[in-house]
């Protein structure tokens, strides 16, 4: 009897965690320059300004999988991530949608300078590092393979999943022959004369695309429409601030990223880094991922966006 009571109370405690919380928004971002507007939003308190009395809880997570899991467990209301991993989660039935874009960034496959002129030249034994299967880097490389040779899986046997910093080390030490990555790692590799970009993300996509998007749970929007609107406005304000208040932005960001001011300025305003809330390339991602079997046919552009 005692045990049953204990068990029931345990279940109640466990399920009680996911109740709605008023006037609190719980957000998760990841590490990287593509998330710069969020640092501005944090430091300037734009959301608090638009929605007085609100509590904003920020969490930094290591990857998209961790964000998805935190949302599933009810500990987050929104997260920032690449479109392909979001589409995989949506396909699996997670109830959240894209609310806005955040940034575009140059992505690319970095190889030894002068080594290859096309993807087809990469030999079977050569290794290419990228974060994980189904990541935006993997999808872009598959797109480029399809574009150049007709076979999206051309290089799948060559791929090794490694986190960005490990991939950078592996490339520099010669342990891998290619690294499909994003800033700041891409910039570091590009700036080394021993390496060059063989295929860029935009070449692979054939059009500009959103790198990082804001994804919000349907439940949160349902229960907090006003706060949701303010959240979007605060995002816009942060993006605008980055463009108009350069000096102050650099101050905030060099503290947030522990980076040298000049280096940060060079990377942040480098061509290809674009901060904007409009969403690009979603349809192309959906079509490609459906054709290659990553997601089912039930996903459509209208259905995955608010």
């Amino acid at each position, binding site marked *: 009897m005692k045990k049953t009571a204990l068990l029931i109370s345990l279940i109640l405690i466990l399920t009680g965690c996911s109740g709605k919380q008023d006037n609190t928004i719980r957000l998760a971002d990841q590490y990287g320059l593509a998330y710069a507007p969020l640092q501005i939003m944090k430091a300037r308190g734009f959301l608090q300004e638009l929605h007085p009395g609100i509590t904003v809880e920020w969490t930094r997570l290591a990857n998209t999988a961790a964000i998805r899991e935190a949302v599933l*467990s009810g500990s987050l209301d929104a997260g920032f991530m690449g479109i392909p991993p979001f589409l995989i989660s949506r396909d699996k039935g997670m109830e959240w949608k894209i609310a806005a874009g955040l940034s575009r960034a140059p992505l690319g496959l970095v190889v030894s300078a002068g080594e290859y002129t096309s993807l087809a030249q990469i030999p079977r034994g050569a290794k290419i590092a990228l974060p994980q299967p189904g990541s935006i880097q993997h999808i872009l490389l598959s797109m480029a393979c399809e574009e150049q040779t007709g076979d999206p899986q051309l290089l799948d046997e060559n791929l090794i999943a490694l986190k960005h910093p490990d991939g950078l080390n592996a490339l520099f030490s010669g342990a891998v022959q290619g690294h499909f990555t994003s800033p700041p790692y891409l910039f570091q590799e590009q700036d080394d004369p021993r390496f060059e970009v063989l295929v860029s993300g935009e070449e692979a996509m054939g059009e500009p695309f959103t790198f990082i998007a804001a994804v919000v749970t349907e439940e949160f929007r349902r229960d907090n429409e006003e706060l949701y609107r303010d959240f979007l406005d605060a995002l816009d304000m942060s993006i605008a601030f980055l463009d108009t208040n350069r000096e102050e932005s650099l101050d905030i960001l060099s503290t947030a990223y522990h980076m040298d001011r000049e280096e940060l300025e060079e990377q942040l305003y480098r061509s290809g880094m674009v901060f904007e809330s409009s969403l690009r390339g979603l349809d192309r991602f959906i079509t490609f991922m459906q054709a290659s079997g990553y997601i089912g046919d039930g996903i459509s552009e209208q259905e995955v966006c608010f």
Partner: protein
Amino acid sequence: MLLKGRSWIWILPVLLLWEGIFRLNLFSPLVFPSPGQVFLRLWQDLLSGELPRGILFSLSIILISLIPAAILGFLMAFLSLRYRWVDSLSGKLSALAHPLPGIALLPLFIIWTGLGFHTLVLIVIHSVIWPFYINVRSGFREIPPLWIEVGRNNGFSRSREFFHIYLPASLPSVLAGLKIGWARSWRAVISAEMIFGTIGTGGGLGWFIYNKRIFMDTPGMIGGLLVLMLIGLLVEYGLFRPWEDRVQIRWGRGHVRT
């Protein structure tokens, strides 16, 4: 022993409770799938060959690493007995290296030796060699001096001393070292596979579970964890326990386990 019915009967209420909680619809199936979903997915992954390949991959890494690690560890322990400087050197080395998790060394192994099958092997060797050495060394030290003196009085040569006194006398500690080594290597290989894996050709069981996580296949992920536990049980009850029992009986310390 493994299949002795009674002691495993608790699995049934656990499964029932699991199914019961699932039916309460408290959680999304992505968070808490039903046992049926998990076993169905497990069956599919077994049939597709993905899971058997993963198991074979991980086990082969362990086998390949365990043998050289055990030989090296044993040699270190034995030479420590003979030469003082070896003892001092390996003692210091193991004190420094033993607390280091293999995973912490992964980035260094990658930049020094490159990426591939051998990186995992190195990590497993590292995780096995130190506990194995420490066990065998203490096994050697516990050999009663009388045994060694009996050998000397009978004019045993060095090699005879080794094969007839040291080797058999250290068997229980070798076994204990192997047991710890197996547990360490299993953990090391599964966690290393979760840090890096080959996307096209697949990897071991750790990679299998990681991949299920990436593609949000929760039933498949839980299935992978169940297989991990099952292999652990099989090795413990199918290999180590019977071996241990035999050694214990031979040493006159044990009795047949019931």
